[in-house]
Protein backbone atom coordinates (compact mmCIF):
# COMPACT_ATOMS: atom_id res chain seq x y z
CA UNK A 1 0.00 0.00 0.00
CA UNK A 2 1.24 3.44 -0.87
CA UNK A 3 2.36 5.60 2.05
CA UNK A 4 1.10 8.70 0.28
CA UNK A 5 -1.59 8.39 -2.37
CA UNK A 6 -2.69 11.49 -4.24
CA UNK A 7 -5.76 11.09 -6.42
CA UNK A 8 -6.87 13.87 -8.79
CA UNK A 9 -5.61 16.48 -6.36
CA UNK A 10 -6.24 20.08 -7.26
CA UNK A 11 -5.31 23.24 -5.39
CA UNK A 12 -6.60 26.55 -6.62
CA UNK A 13 -6.50 30.02 -5.12
CA UNK A 14 -9.17 32.67 -5.57
CA UNK A 15 -8.50 35.22 -8.30
CA UNK A 16 -6.34 38.13 -7.11
CA UNK A 17 -8.91 40.59 -8.43
CA UNK A 18 -12.59 40.33 -9.28
CA UNK A 19 -12.18 40.01 -13.02
CA UNK A 20 -9.28 37.55 -13.07
CA UNK A 21 -9.52 33.78 -13.24
CA UNK A 22 -8.67 31.66 -10.21
CA UNK A 23 -5.10 30.47 -9.99
CA UNK A 24 -4.64 26.73 -10.27
CA UNK A 25 -1.37 25.85 -8.52
CA UNK A 26 -1.80 22.08 -8.60
CA UNK A 27 -3.91 20.62 -11.36
CA UNK A 28 -5.38 17.13 -11.14
CA UNK A 29 -2.31 15.34 -9.80
CA UNK A 30 -2.35 11.60 -9.19
CA UNK A 31 0.75 10.12 -7.59
CA UNK A 32 1.64 7.16 -5.36
CA UNK A 33 4.62 7.27 -3.04
CA UNK A 34 5.54 3.80 -1.79
CA UNK A 35 7.16 3.18 1.61
CA UNK A 36 10.95 3.47 1.30
CA UNK A 37 10.85 5.60 -1.85
CA UNK A 38 12.94 8.69 -2.29
CA UNK A 39 10.52 10.46 -4.55
CA UNK A 40 11.87 13.48 -6.41
CA UNK A 41 9.53 16.14 -7.75
CA UNK A 42 11.21 18.47 -10.18
CA UNK A 43 9.97 21.52 -12.03
CA UNK A 44 10.72 25.15 -12.72
CA UNK A 45 9.73 27.69 -10.08
CA UNK A 46 6.01 28.26 -10.26
CA UNK A 47 5.35 24.72 -11.47
CA UNK A 48 3.36 23.98 -8.32
CA UNK A 49 5.78 21.60 -6.65
CA UNK A 50 6.07 23.49 -3.35
CA UNK A 51 2.30 23.74 -3.13
CA UNK A 52 1.99 20.03 -3.87
CA UNK A 53 4.39 19.27 -1.02
CA UNK A 54 2.34 21.41 1.39
CA UNK A 55 -0.82 19.55 0.45
CA UNK A 56 0.73 16.33 1.73
CA UNK A 57 0.99 17.60 5.33
CA UNK A 58 -2.02 19.85 4.87
CA UNK A 59 -0.20 23.10 5.55
CA UNK A 60 -2.35 24.03 2.56
CA UNK A 61 -5.75 22.38 2.22
CA UNK A 62 -6.46 20.74 -1.14
CA UNK A 63 -9.35 22.19 -3.12
CA UNK A 64 -10.41 18.88 -4.65
CA UNK A 65 -9.30 15.27 -4.85
CA UNK A 66 -8.10 12.80 -2.27
CA UNK A 67 -4.85 12.57 -0.32
CA UNK A 68 -4.24 9.49 1.77
CA UNK A 69 -1.36 9.32 4.23
CA UNK A 70 -0.73 5.84 5.57
CA UNK A 71 -4.20 4.82 4.45
CA UNK A 72 -5.96 7.73 6.11
CA UNK A 73 -7.78 10.38 4.10
CA UNK A 74 -6.56 13.82 5.14
CA UNK A 75 -8.54 16.06 2.82
CA UNK A 76 -11.35 17.59 4.86
CA UNK A 77 -9.87 16.80 8.28
CA UNK A 78 -10.04 19.52 10.92
CA UNK A 79 -6.99 21.48 12.02
CA UNK A 80 -6.85 19.61 15.34
CA UNK A 81 -6.73 16.16 13.69
CA UNK A 82 -4.21 17.42 11.15
CA UNK A 83 -1.86 18.44 13.95
CA UNK A 84 -1.69 14.80 15.01
CA UNK A 85 -0.93 13.73 11.47
CA UNK A 86 1.78 16.37 11.06
CA UNK A 87 3.61 14.88 14.04
CA UNK A 88 4.18 11.83 11.83
CA UNK A 89 5.51 13.86 8.88
CA UNK A 90 8.82 15.71 9.11
CA UNK A 91 9.63 18.70 6.93
CA UNK A 92 12.83 20.53 6.02
CA UNK A 93 13.09 23.83 4.18
CA UNK A 94 15.24 25.75 1.73
CA UNK A 95 15.87 28.54 4.26
CA UNK A 96 16.15 25.97 7.11
CA UNK A 97 13.56 27.88 9.17
CA UNK A 98 15.33 27.20 12.45
CA UNK A 99 14.12 28.99 15.58
CA UNK A 100 16.78 31.69 15.90
CA UNK A 101 15.96 32.32 19.57
CA UNK A 102 16.51 28.69 20.54
CA UNK A 103 19.72 26.71 20.73
CA UNK A 104 20.37 23.72 18.48
CA UNK A 105 19.16 21.52 21.33
CA UNK A 106 16.06 23.67 21.78
CA UNK A 107 15.26 23.45 18.08
CA UNK A 108 15.47 19.67 17.99
CA UNK A 109 13.53 19.35 21.26
CA UNK A 110 10.66 21.53 20.04
CA UNK A 111 8.64 18.93 18.10
CA UNK A 112 9.06 16.51 21.03
CA UNK A 113 7.59 19.09 23.40
CA UNK A 114 4.70 19.55 21.00
CA UNK A 115 4.25 15.79 20.99
CA UNK A 116 4.10 15.84 24.79
CA UNK A 117 7.26 13.86 25.57
CA UNK A 118 8.71 13.85 29.07
CA UNK A 119 11.77 15.93 29.76
CA UNK A 120 14.19 13.06 30.34
CA UNK A 121 13.02 11.30 27.19
CA UNK A 122 13.44 14.51 25.21
CA UNK A 123 17.01 14.97 26.44
CA UNK A 124 17.99 11.43 25.46
CA UNK A 125 16.32 11.66 22.06
CA UNK A 126 17.90 15.03 21.23
CA UNK A 127 21.36 13.72 22.11
CA UNK A 128 20.80 10.68 19.91
CA UNK A 129 19.64 12.83 16.98
CA UNK A 130 22.52 15.31 17.26
CA UNK A 131 24.92 12.37 17.25
CA UNK A 132 23.27 11.05 14.12
CA UNK A 133 23.67 14.32 12.21
CA UNK A 134 27.17 14.86 13.62
CA UNK A 135 26.44 18.01 15.62
CA UNK A 136 26.75 16.73 19.18
CA UNK A 137 29.32 19.46 19.89
CA UNK A 138 26.96 22.23 18.72
CA UNK A 139 24.06 21.45 21.07
CA UNK A 140 24.41 24.75 22.92
CA UNK A 141 25.04 26.92 19.85
CA UNK A 142 22.48 29.26 18.33
CA UNK A 143 21.55 28.95 14.63
CA UNK A 144 23.32 32.20 13.69
CA UNK A 145 26.58 30.59 14.82
CA UNK A 146 26.22 27.72 12.32
CA UNK A 147 27.11 27.33 8.64
CA UNK A 148 24.40 26.60 6.07
CA UNK A 149 25.17 22.89 5.98
CA UNK A 150 25.10 22.67 9.77
CA UNK A 151 21.78 24.52 9.86
CA UNK A 152 20.23 22.05 7.45
CA UNK A 153 21.56 19.16 9.53
CA UNK A 154 19.84 20.68 12.56
CA UNK A 155 16.72 21.00 10.38
CA UNK A 156 16.96 17.31 9.53
CA UNK A 157 17.48 16.30 13.17
CA UNK A 158 14.46 18.41 14.14
CA UNK A 159 12.32 16.93 11.38
CA UNK A 160 13.24 13.38 12.42
CA UNK A 161 12.73 13.94 16.15
CA UNK A 162 9.33 12.30 16.41
CA UNK A 163 10.45 9.38 14.19
CA UNK A 164 8.17 10.27 11.28
CA UNK A 165 7.61 7.77 8.48
CA UNK A 166 7.68 10.52 5.88
CA UNK A 167 10.09 13.41 5.38
CA UNK A 168 9.22 16.31 3.10
CA UNK A 169 12.22 18.21 1.74
CA UNK A 170 11.37 21.57 0.19
CA UNK A 171 14.37 22.65 -1.94
CA UNK A 172 16.46 21.51 1.02
CA UNK A 173 19.79 22.00 -0.74
CA UNK A 174 19.04 24.98 -2.98
CA UNK A 175 20.63 27.48 -0.61
CA UNK A 176 23.82 25.43 -0.18
CA UNK A 177 27.09 25.26 -2.11
CA UNK A 178 27.85 22.09 -4.13
CA UNK A 179 30.03 20.40 -1.47
CA UNK A 180 27.53 21.03 1.30
CA UNK A 181 24.73 19.92 -0.99
CA UNK A 182 26.42 16.53 -1.40
CA UNK A 183 26.93 16.30 2.36
CA UNK A 184 23.24 16.95 3.05
CA UNK A 185 22.13 14.58 0.29
CA UNK A 186 24.34 11.84 1.77
CA UNK A 187 22.69 12.45 5.14
CA UNK A 188 19.24 12.17 3.56
CA UNK A 189 20.28 8.90 1.93
CA UNK A 190 21.32 7.59 5.34
CA UNK A 191 17.98 8.68 6.79
CA UNK A 192 16.25 6.71 4.07
CA UNK A 193 18.50 3.65 4.40
CA UNK A 194 18.98 3.40 8.15
CA UNK A 195 15.55 4.49 9.38
CA UNK A 196 13.50 3.49 6.35
CA UNK A 197 12.05 6.99 6.19
CA UNK A 198 10.23 7.70 2.95
CA UNK A 199 11.35 11.03 1.49
CA UNK A 200 9.67 13.39 -0.94
CA UNK A 201 12.21 15.82 -2.37
CA UNK A 202 11.20 18.99 -4.18
CA UNK A 203 13.93 20.51 -6.32
CA UNK A 204 14.67 22.38 -9.51
CA UNK A 205 18.11 20.79 -9.74
CA UNK A 206 18.29 17.57 -11.70
CA UNK A 207 21.56 16.51 -10.08
CA UNK A 208 19.74 16.32 -6.73
CA UNK A 209 17.29 13.88 -8.30
CA UNK A 210 20.15 12.02 -9.94
CA UNK A 211 22.07 11.50 -6.75
CA UNK A 212 19.26 10.68 -4.34
CA UNK A 213 15.89 9.86 -5.89
CA UNK A 214 14.56 6.45 -6.84
CA UNK A 215 11.44 7.82 -8.51
CA UNK A 216 10.80 11.15 -10.11
CA UNK A 217 7.82 13.23 -11.18
CA UNK A 218 8.28 16.18 -13.52
CA UNK A 219 5.87 19.04 -12.93
CA UNK A 220 4.93 21.82 -15.30
CA UNK A 221 2.02 24.24 -15.02
CA UNK A 222 0.66 22.49 -11.94
CA UNK A 223 0.50 19.10 -13.63
CA UNK A 224 2.68 16.03 -13.36
CA UNK A 225 3.73 15.61 -16.98
CA UNK A 226 5.88 12.55 -16.49
CA UNK A 227 6.73 10.21 -13.65
CA UNK A 228 8.38 6.89 -13.06
CA UNK A 229 11.69 5.30 -12.08
CA UNK A 230 14.52 7.77 -12.20
CA UNK A 231 16.46 5.57 -14.59
CA UNK A 232 13.60 5.39 -17.09
CA UNK A 233 12.91 9.11 -17.06
CA UNK A 234 16.61 9.98 -17.33
CA UNK A 235 17.44 7.51 -20.04
CA UNK A 236 14.33 8.06 -22.14
CA UNK A 237 12.34 11.17 -21.19
CA UNK A 238 8.95 11.05 -22.91
CA UNK A 239 8.19 14.74 -22.64
CA UNK A 240 10.12 17.73 -24.04
CA UNK A 241 10.06 19.53 -20.68
CA UNK A 242 11.44 16.43 -18.92
CA UNK A 243 14.02 16.23 -21.67
CA UNK A 244 15.19 19.76 -20.89
CA UNK A 245 15.65 18.88 -17.22
CA UNK A 246 17.48 15.68 -18.11
CA UNK A 247 19.72 17.65 -20.46
CA UNK A 248 20.94 19.81 -17.54
CA UNK A 249 22.82 16.83 -16.11
CA UNK A 250 23.06 14.39 -18.97
CA UNK A 251 25.12 15.33 -21.98
CA UNK A 252 22.87 13.81 -24.57
CA UNK A 253 22.36 14.32 -28.26
CA UNK A 254 24.13 17.39 -29.69
CA UNK A 255 21.86 20.28 -30.60
CA UNK A 256 21.89 21.55 -34.23
CA UNK A 257 24.25 24.36 -33.27
CA UNK A 258 26.62 21.97 -31.51
CA UNK A 259 26.38 19.64 -34.50
CA UNK A 260 27.54 22.40 -36.85
CA UNK A 261 30.60 22.95 -34.68
CA UNK A 262 31.31 19.20 -34.58
CA UNK A 263 31.09 18.96 -38.35
CA UNK A 264 33.56 21.77 -38.75
CA UNK A 265 36.07 20.16 -36.48
CA UNK A 266 35.69 16.49 -37.36
CA UNK A 267 35.64 14.65 -40.64
CA UNK A 268 33.39 11.70 -41.36
CA UNK A 269 29.81 10.80 -40.58
CA UNK A 270 28.41 11.93 -37.26
CA UNK A 271 26.48 9.15 -35.53
CA UNK A 272 24.92 9.11 -32.07
CA UNK A 273 24.68 5.76 -30.32
CA UNK A 274 22.32 5.61 -27.31
CA UNK A 275 22.99 3.06 -24.60
CA UNK A 276 20.75 1.80 -21.84
CA UNK A 277 22.45 -0.43 -19.31
CA UNK A 278 25.57 0.35 -21.27
CA UNK A 279 28.26 -1.80 -19.69
CA UNK A 280 28.15 -4.82 -21.99
CA UNK A 281 26.88 -3.31 -25.21
CA UNK A 282 29.42 -0.48 -25.23
CA UNK A 283 32.42 -2.77 -25.63
CA UNK A 284 30.70 -4.73 -28.39
CA UNK A 285 29.90 -1.60 -30.35
CA UNK A 286 33.50 -0.49 -30.35
CA UNK A 287 34.75 -3.97 -31.21
CA UNK A 288 32.39 -4.14 -34.15
CA UNK A 289 33.44 -0.75 -35.51
CA UNK A 290 37.09 -1.72 -35.20
CA UNK A 291 36.49 -5.12 -36.83
CA UNK A 292 34.88 -3.38 -39.81
CA UNK A 293 38.15 -1.52 -40.27
CA UNK A 294 36.55 1.85 -39.61
CA UNK A 295 38.35 4.84 -38.20
CA UNK A 296 36.27 6.57 -35.49
CA UNK A 297 36.57 9.06 -32.68
CA UNK A 298 34.34 10.03 -29.79
CA UNK A 299 33.30 13.65 -30.28
CA UNK A 300 30.41 14.27 -27.88
CA UNK A 301 28.36 12.73 -25.07
CA UNK A 302 28.93 10.70 -21.94
CA UNK A 303 27.86 7.74 -19.84
CA UNK A 304 25.84 8.41 -16.68
CA UNK A 305 25.33 6.35 -13.62
CA UNK A 306 21.81 6.43 -12.17
CA UNK A 307 21.08 4.24 -9.16
CA UNK A 308 23.90 1.92 -10.20
CA UNK A 309 22.73 1.56 -13.80
CA UNK A 310 24.58 3.17 -16.65
CA UNK A 311 23.18 4.85 -19.71
CA UNK A 312 24.18 7.58 -22.09
CA UNK A 313 24.61 8.89 -25.57
CA UNK A 314 27.93 8.77 -27.39
CA UNK A 315 28.37 10.70 -30.61
CA UNK A 316 31.07 9.40 -32.91
CA UNK A 317 32.66 10.71 -36.07
CA UNK A 318 33.19 7.64 -38.27
CA UNK A 319 35.43 7.60 -41.32
CA UNK A 320 35.72 4.89 -43.97
CA UNK A 321 33.92 3.52 -47.02
CA UNK A 322 30.22 4.45 -46.96
CA UNK A 323 29.11 0.88 -47.60
CA UNK A 324 31.24 -0.44 -44.75
CA UNK A 325 29.85 2.22 -42.38
CA UNK A 326 26.26 1.40 -43.42
CA UNK A 327 26.82 -2.28 -42.81
CA UNK A 328 28.41 -1.69 -39.42
CA UNK A 329 25.66 0.70 -38.33
CA UNK A 330 22.96 -1.72 -39.38
CA UNK A 331 24.59 -4.46 -37.36
CA UNK A 332 25.06 -2.24 -34.29
CA UNK A 333 21.53 -0.91 -34.67
CA UNK A 334 20.19 -4.36 -33.90
CA UNK A 335 21.53 -4.02 -30.36
CA UNK A 336 21.43 -0.31 -29.47
CA UNK A 337 19.74 2.78 -30.80
CA UNK A 338 21.71 4.45 -33.60
CA UNK A 339 20.88 7.88 -34.98
CA UNK A 340 22.88 9.45 -37.74
CA UNK A 341 22.97 13.24 -37.80
CA UNK A 342 21.93 14.59 -41.17
Amino acid at each position, binding site marked *: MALVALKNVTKSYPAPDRKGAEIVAVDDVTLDVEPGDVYGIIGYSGAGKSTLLRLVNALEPATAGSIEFDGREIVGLGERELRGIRLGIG*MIFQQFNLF*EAKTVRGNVAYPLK*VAGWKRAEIDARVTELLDFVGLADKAGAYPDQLSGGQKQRVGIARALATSPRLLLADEATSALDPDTTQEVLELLKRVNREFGVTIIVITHEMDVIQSIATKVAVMDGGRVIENGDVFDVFSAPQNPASGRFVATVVKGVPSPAELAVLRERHEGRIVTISFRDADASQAQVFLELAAAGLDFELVYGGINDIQGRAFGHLTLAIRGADAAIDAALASIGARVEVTEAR
Partner: protein
Amino acid sequence: MDRLAELGPDFWVAAAETLYMVALTLLIGGFAGLVLGVVLYATRAGGLMPNRVVYNVLNVVINFFRPIPFIIFLAAIQPLARYVIGIGIGNDALIFSLSIAASFAISRIVEQNLVTVSPGVIEAARSMGAGPVRTLCTVVIPEALGPLILGYTFIVVAIVDMTAMAGFIGGGGLGNFALVYGFRQYQPAITWAALLLIVVFVQVLQFLGNWLARKVMRR
Protein backbone atom coordinates in the same frame (compact mmCIF):
# COMPACT_ATOMS: atom_id res chain seq x y z
CA MET B 1 19.13 76.58 45.57
CA ASP B 2 18.21 77.17 49.20
CA ARG B 3 14.61 76.58 48.29
CA LEU B 4 15.59 73.24 46.72
CA ALA B 5 17.39 72.18 49.87
CA GLU B 6 14.30 73.10 51.83
CA LEU B 7 12.11 70.99 49.55
CA GLY B 8 14.61 68.13 49.48
CA PRO B 9 12.44 65.47 51.12
CA ASP B 10 9.43 66.38 48.94
CA PHE B 11 11.64 66.17 45.87
CA TRP B 12 12.63 62.60 46.63
CA VAL B 13 9.04 61.67 47.40
CA ALA B 14 8.06 63.10 43.97
CA ALA B 15 10.85 61.08 42.35
CA ALA B 16 9.60 57.91 44.03
CA GLU B 17 6.05 58.69 42.91
CA THR B 18 7.21 59.01 39.30
CA LEU B 19 8.98 55.66 39.48
CA TYR B 20 5.93 54.07 41.09
CA MET B 21 3.62 55.36 38.36
CA VAL B 22 5.99 54.32 35.57
CA ALA B 23 6.57 50.86 37.01
CA LEU B 24 2.91 50.06 37.60
CA THR B 25 1.83 51.46 34.24
CA LEU B 26 4.53 49.43 32.50
CA LEU B 27 3.36 46.32 34.31
CA ILE B 28 -0.38 46.72 33.70
CA GLY B 29 -0.36 48.58 30.40
CA GLY B 30 2.59 46.54 29.18
CA PHE B 31 0.78 43.26 29.78
CA ALA B 32 -2.54 44.48 28.34
CA GLY B 33 -0.69 45.90 25.34
CA LEU B 34 1.12 42.62 24.79
CA VAL B 35 -2.17 40.72 24.80
CA LEU B 36 -3.85 43.24 22.48
CA GLY B 37 -0.86 43.26 20.14
CA VAL B 38 -0.71 39.47 19.99
CA VAL B 39 -4.46 39.33 19.27
CA LEU B 40 -4.05 41.93 16.51
CA TYR B 41 -1.17 39.95 15.04
CA ALA B 42 -2.94 36.59 15.26
CA THR B 43 -6.29 37.71 13.87
CA ARG B 44 -5.04 39.73 10.91
CA ALA B 45 -5.68 38.36 7.43
CA GLY B 46 -3.28 35.49 6.77
CA GLY B 47 -2.42 35.31 10.48
CA LEU B 48 -2.40 32.30 12.76
CA MET B 49 -6.08 32.66 13.69
CA PRO B 50 -7.53 35.02 11.12
CA ASN B 51 -10.73 36.66 12.34
CA ARG B 52 -11.92 39.74 10.51
CA VAL B 53 -14.48 40.80 13.10
CA VAL B 54 -12.08 40.74 16.05
CA TYR B 55 -9.31 42.38 14.06
CA ASN B 56 -11.46 45.17 12.64
CA VAL B 57 -13.13 45.99 15.97
CA LEU B 58 -9.78 46.15 17.76
CA ASN B 59 -8.26 48.11 14.93
CA VAL B 60 -11.00 50.76 15.05
CA VAL B 61 -10.98 51.01 18.84
CA ILE B 62 -7.22 51.46 18.96
CA ASN B 63 -7.22 53.96 16.14
CA PHE B 64 -9.99 55.88 17.91
CA PHE B 65 -8.18 56.26 21.22
CA ARG B 66 -4.58 56.57 20.09
CA PRO B 67 -4.64 60.10 18.66
CA ILE B 68 -6.39 61.59 21.73
CA PRO B 69 -3.98 63.89 23.57
CA PHE B 70 -3.30 62.27 26.92
CA ILE B 71 -4.30 65.27 29.01
CA ILE B 72 -7.79 65.26 27.42
CA PHE B 73 -8.02 61.49 27.70
CA LEU B 74 -7.20 61.86 31.40
CA ALA B 75 -10.19 64.15 31.89
CA ALA B 76 -12.52 62.10 29.70
CA ILE B 77 -11.71 58.77 31.34
CA GLN B 78 -11.98 60.06 34.91
CA PRO B 79 -15.51 58.72 35.55
CA LEU B 80 -14.42 55.29 34.43
CA ALA B 81 -11.42 55.45 36.76
CA ARG B 82 -13.71 56.36 39.64
CA TYR B 83 -16.03 53.52 38.75
CA VAL B 84 -13.33 50.86 38.37
CA ILE B 85 -10.76 51.71 41.05
CA GLY B 86 -13.00 53.83 43.29
CA ILE B 87 -11.12 57.10 42.92
CA GLY B 88 -10.90 59.63 40.09
CA ILE B 89 -7.92 61.65 41.33
CA GLY B 90 -4.36 61.04 42.42
CA ASN B 91 -1.54 58.78 41.31
CA ASP B 92 -3.61 55.63 41.15
CA ALA B 93 -6.21 57.26 38.90
CA LEU B 94 -3.36 58.35 36.66
CA ILE B 95 -1.96 54.81 36.56
CA PHE B 96 -5.40 53.52 35.56
CA SER B 97 -5.79 56.00 32.69
CA LEU B 98 -2.18 55.81 31.59
CA SER B 99 -2.28 52.00 31.51
CA ILE B 100 -5.20 52.15 29.10
CA ALA B 101 -3.54 54.75 26.87
CA ALA B 102 -0.20 52.93 26.98
CA SER B 103 -1.74 49.54 26.20
CA PHE B 104 -3.13 50.90 22.92
CA ALA B 105 0.23 52.32 21.92
CA ILE B 106 2.07 49.18 23.04
CA SER B 107 -0.33 46.94 21.10
CA ARG B 108 0.75 48.64 17.88
CA ILE B 109 4.42 48.27 18.72
CA VAL B 110 3.92 44.60 19.59
CA GLU B 111 1.97 43.98 16.37
CA GLN B 112 4.64 45.69 14.27
CA ASN B 113 7.43 43.66 15.82
CA LEU B 114 5.63 40.34 15.57
CA VAL B 115 4.94 40.73 11.84
CA THR B 116 8.70 40.79 11.26
CA VAL B 117 8.98 37.17 12.43
CA SER B 118 9.78 35.05 9.36
CA PRO B 119 6.71 33.21 8.02
CA GLY B 120 9.00 30.25 7.35
CA VAL B 121 9.68 29.78 11.05
CA ILE B 122 5.95 29.81 11.75
CA GLU B 123 5.38 27.32 8.96
CA ALA B 124 8.06 25.10 10.50
CA ALA B 125 6.24 25.14 13.85
CA ARG B 126 2.94 24.32 12.11
CA SER B 127 4.59 21.47 10.22
CA MET B 128 5.55 19.98 13.60
CA GLY B 129 1.94 19.95 14.70
CA ALA B 130 2.08 23.04 16.94
CA GLY B 131 -1.26 24.81 17.34
CA PRO B 132 -1.70 28.57 16.99
CA VAL B 133 -1.60 29.47 20.69
CA ARG B 134 1.50 27.37 21.28
CA THR B 135 3.13 28.85 18.17
CA LEU B 136 2.42 32.37 19.41
CA CYS B 137 3.76 31.75 22.91
CA THR B 138 6.74 29.52 22.18
CA VAL B 139 7.85 30.65 18.72
CA VAL B 140 6.54 34.05 17.62
CA ILE B 141 7.10 35.99 20.85
CA PRO B 142 10.54 34.48 21.64
CA GLU B 143 11.68 35.09 18.04
CA ALA B 144 10.65 38.75 18.27
CA LEU B 145 11.87 39.27 21.83
CA GLY B 146 14.84 41.51 21.02
CA PRO B 147 12.87 44.06 18.97
CA LEU B 148 10.01 43.80 21.48
CA ILE B 149 12.33 44.86 24.30
CA LEU B 150 13.49 47.84 22.23
CA GLY B 151 9.85 48.71 21.54
CA TYR B 152 9.00 48.58 25.23
CA THR B 153 12.03 50.74 26.01
CA PHE B 154 10.73 53.29 23.53
CA ILE B 155 7.30 53.27 25.14
CA VAL B 156 8.59 53.47 28.71
CA VAL B 157 10.19 56.79 27.85
CA ALA B 158 6.80 58.00 26.62
CA ILE B 159 5.25 56.75 29.87
CA VAL B 160 7.73 58.78 31.91
CA ASP B 161 6.68 61.75 29.78
CA MET B 162 2.97 61.21 30.45
CA THR B 163 3.32 60.72 34.21
CA ALA B 164 4.29 64.39 34.31
CA MET B 165 0.61 65.18 33.80
CA ALA B 166 -0.43 63.53 37.06
CA GLY B 167 -0.72 66.92 38.73
CA PHE B 168 -3.64 67.70 36.46
CA ILE B 169 -5.82 65.24 38.36
CA GLY B 170 -4.25 65.85 41.77
CA GLY B 171 -1.43 63.36 41.51
CA GLY B 172 2.24 63.88 42.34
CA GLY B 173 5.53 62.98 40.75
CA LEU B 174 8.38 65.01 39.35
CA GLY B 175 6.23 66.69 36.70
CA ASN B 176 3.83 68.02 39.30
CA PHE B 177 6.76 69.02 41.53
CA ALA B 178 8.34 71.05 38.73
CA LEU B 179 5.09 72.82 37.96
CA VAL B 180 3.99 73.53 41.54
CA TYR B 181 7.31 74.48 43.15
CA GLY B 182 9.31 75.50 40.10
CA PHE B 183 7.12 77.06 37.46
CA ARG B 184 4.43 78.65 39.64
CA GLN B 185 6.82 79.95 42.29
CA TYR B 186 9.35 81.35 39.81
CA GLN B 187 12.09 78.92 40.88
CA PRO B 188 13.83 77.79 37.67
CA ALA B 189 16.41 75.86 39.68
CA ILE B 190 13.67 73.59 40.99
CA THR B 191 12.18 73.12 37.52
CA TRP B 192 15.65 72.18 36.25
CA ALA B 193 16.34 69.82 39.12
CA ALA B 194 13.16 67.87 38.32
CA LEU B 195 13.97 67.98 34.63
CA LEU B 196 17.49 66.66 35.11
CA LEU B 197 16.35 63.82 37.31
CA ILE B 198 13.79 62.81 34.67
CA VAL B 199 16.56 62.85 32.06
CA VAL B 200 18.62 60.58 34.30
CA PHE B 201 15.68 58.17 34.67
CA VAL B 202 15.18 58.08 30.93
CA GLN B 203 18.89 57.51 30.25
CA VAL B 204 19.04 54.65 32.73
CA LEU B 205 15.88 53.04 31.33
CA GLN B 206 17.15 53.36 27.76
CA PHE B 207 20.49 51.88 28.74
CA LEU B 208 18.81 48.95 30.50
CA GLY B 209 16.56 48.33 27.52
CA ASN B 210 19.43 48.36 25.06
CA TRP B 211 21.49 46.09 27.26
CA LEU B 212 18.68 43.58 27.69
CA ALA B 213 17.84 43.59 23.97
CA ARG B 214 21.48 43.04 23.07
CA LYS B 215 21.69 40.17 25.53
CA VAL B 216 18.59 38.55 24.06
CA MET B 217 19.76 39.04 20.47
CA ARG B 218 23.38 38.04 21.30
CA ARG B 219 24.80 40.62 18.90
